[in-house]
């Protein structure tokens, strides 16, 4: 029976202590998590590919190092799930797309190399919306991932596999990426912690590109302390990413203090209500209760309006597809990935058939949209205009940060929705990112932490947005709030759910 004492249910910092005290070996920890994966994968499908052999080698390496008395990094031996967007040397990397089926990168993404150096143990590649385009993980070419809190619901997206894996303890920590909310929204839907850092804080080298001015790497973890530990591993300058920020990296765990004294926190009106439409009642209530709690912890809280956030969705859905249409031009069936097997008469026909077979509907839709808005005659009306409004959004943030250290609101207007509910209505799907997109447009750090549950038992996330390079302030407030609650300790029970479902089906 699963319970809080099961090894796989512990956090990375708890397990790191046990590993350091030799109360458990990295191999025993891996076996525990592997047992959980074996038990749950048929119900959840968090992973696209499992790398057990590699994980065993890495775990044994950590155990040998410790036996030799070596001083190991803090997260050495911790099992991690990797979104299938990271180029991983020797491991098939598909980005959830048919067009990259069989692609085995000859090099590691910067963050993958960092994880290897720190002794993390690679469980496998987690499921995602194809090329990170989606909010539900339903756009994967490898099938849908289920939400561990309710198997009929989506885990969010695009890093849905990573969030589901951590929520169900099929991984202790995981990596996602966030272009418009793809770390924070699934973290919120699955009741775990997700952080998108300041643009440039973590190198994008080796991360398969979607929209380069918005994409950021981010960890998904069981609590705020684990999140700070992961950020310590990932953050820092990398000359191979020309947008990488060359600033010293603090020890993020030093920021974790159990009070919020003196922090000025602004509840953003446009996060609670986009273009006059309010978020779901239970979500709004949970967020307001969280703000009240922050006040009790010593923060000064007030409401603030950032009027141009009401234009976030059109701005994002012009900029991101435009950048994507350019980034995805590289998938041409020549250097890697899928090429059509049909007979073709010229190279253009080869490109078109290859891309038609290789890309799914949402990816095609966005390539089409981006190609159109960048095409002759429309550039000024769309891309240029969106860039100008992006400036106005960033100015709204700058003005708000003169008064506040942190901005807060919900992560998503609703709790996890049902599989299939929005898949045929692109605009409705796009609106589920309304609260998370502004931080990407502004290049600002953002975070999701659990702040309650709906009457149906589905997790609700509190969204924090910080100043540029304000990760420490964000983590401090998140930690203070989290430590005053028990939401992060509640465990998803997917097996009981699936048993219940089976019984219900048997009865019917």
């Amino acid at each position, binding site marked *: 029976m699963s319970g809080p004492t099961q090894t796989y249910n512990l956090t990375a910092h708890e397990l790191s202590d046990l590993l350091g005290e030799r109360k458990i070996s990295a191999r025993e920890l891996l076996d525990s998590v592997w047992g959980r994966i074996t038990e749950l994968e048929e119900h959840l499908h968090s992973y696209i590919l499992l790398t057990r052999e590699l994980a065993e080698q890495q775990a044994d390496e950590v155990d040998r190092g410790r036996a030799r008395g070596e001083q190991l990094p803090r997260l050495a031996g911790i099992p991690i799930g990797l979104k299938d967007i990271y180029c991983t040397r020797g491991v098939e990397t598909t980005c959830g797309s048919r067009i990259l089926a069989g692609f085995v990168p000859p090099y590691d993404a910067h963050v993958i190399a960092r994880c290897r150096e720190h002794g993390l143990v690679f469980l496998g590649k987690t499921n995602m919306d194809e090329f990170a385009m989606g909010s539900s993980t339903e756009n994967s070419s490898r099938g849908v991932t289920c939400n561990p809190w309710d198997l009929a619901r989506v885990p969010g997206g695009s890093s849905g596999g990573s969030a589901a894996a951590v929520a169900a303890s099929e991984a202790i920590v995981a990596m996602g990426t966030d272009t418009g909310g793809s770390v924070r929204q699934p973290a919120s839907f699955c009741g775990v912690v997700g952080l998108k850092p300041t643009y440039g804080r973590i190198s994008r080298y080796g991360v398969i590109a979607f929209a380069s001015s918005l994409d950021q790497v981010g960890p998904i973890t069981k609590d705020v302390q684990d999140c700070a530990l992961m950020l310590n591993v990932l953050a820092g300058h990398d000359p191979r990413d020309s947008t990488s920020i060359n600033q010293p990296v603090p020890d993020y765990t030093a920021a974790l203090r159990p009070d919020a004294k003196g922090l000025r926190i602004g509840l953003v009106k446009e996060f609670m209500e986009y273009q006059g439409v309010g978020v779901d009642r239970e979500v709004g209530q949970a967020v307001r209760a969280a703000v009240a709690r922050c006040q009790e912890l010593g923060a000064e809280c007030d409401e603030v309006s950032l009027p141009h956030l009401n234009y976030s969705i059109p701005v994002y859905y012009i900029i991101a597809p435009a950048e994507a249409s350019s980034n995805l031009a590289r998938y041409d069936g020549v250097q890697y990935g899928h090429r059509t097997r049909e007979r073709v008469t010229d190279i253009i026909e080869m490109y078109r058939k290859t891309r038609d077979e290789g890309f799914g509907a949402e990816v095609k839709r966005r390539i089409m949209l981006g190609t159109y808005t960048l095409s002759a005659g429309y550039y000024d009306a*769309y891309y240029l205009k969106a860039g100008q409004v992006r400036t106005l959004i960033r100015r709204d943030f700058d003005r708000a940060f003169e008064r506040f250290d942190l901005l807060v609101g919900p992560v998503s207007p609703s709790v996890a929705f049902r599989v299939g509910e929005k898949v045929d209505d692109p605009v409705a799907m796009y609106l589920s990112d309304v609260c998370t997109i502004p931080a990407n447009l502004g290049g600002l750090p953002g975070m999701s932490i659990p702040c309650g549950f709906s009457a149906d038992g589905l997790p609700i996330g509190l969204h924090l947005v910080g100043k540029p390079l304000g990760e420490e302030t964000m983590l401090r407030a998140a930690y203070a709030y989290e430590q005053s609650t028990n939401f992060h300790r509640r465990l998803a029970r997917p097996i009981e759910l699936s048993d219940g479902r089976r019984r219900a089906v048997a009865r019917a």
Partner: protein
Amino acid sequence: MRLTPEEVEHVALLARLELTEEERERFTTQLNSILEHFEQLRQLDTTGVPAMSHAVAISNVFRDDAPEPSLSREQALGNSPDQASNCFRVPRVIE
């Protein structure tokens, strides 16, 4: 501004995508509903506002022009769907 199926077909050619009849119809409807959603940006006066293309003010990041190790030929070709004589092979480009 309403996109016609013919314009959608033209965009598909520019994007090097091949659409079935059914996809062309569906994309025409869906792209029009998305473009309609974009119309609200017209309400905003952005005269004189510079366009933001990036979140951080970094420009012209250079490194020394010195050779560094790179992928071997075998690695670079290792994932190609078709190759010959140590090159990527593609359908005829020049008549």
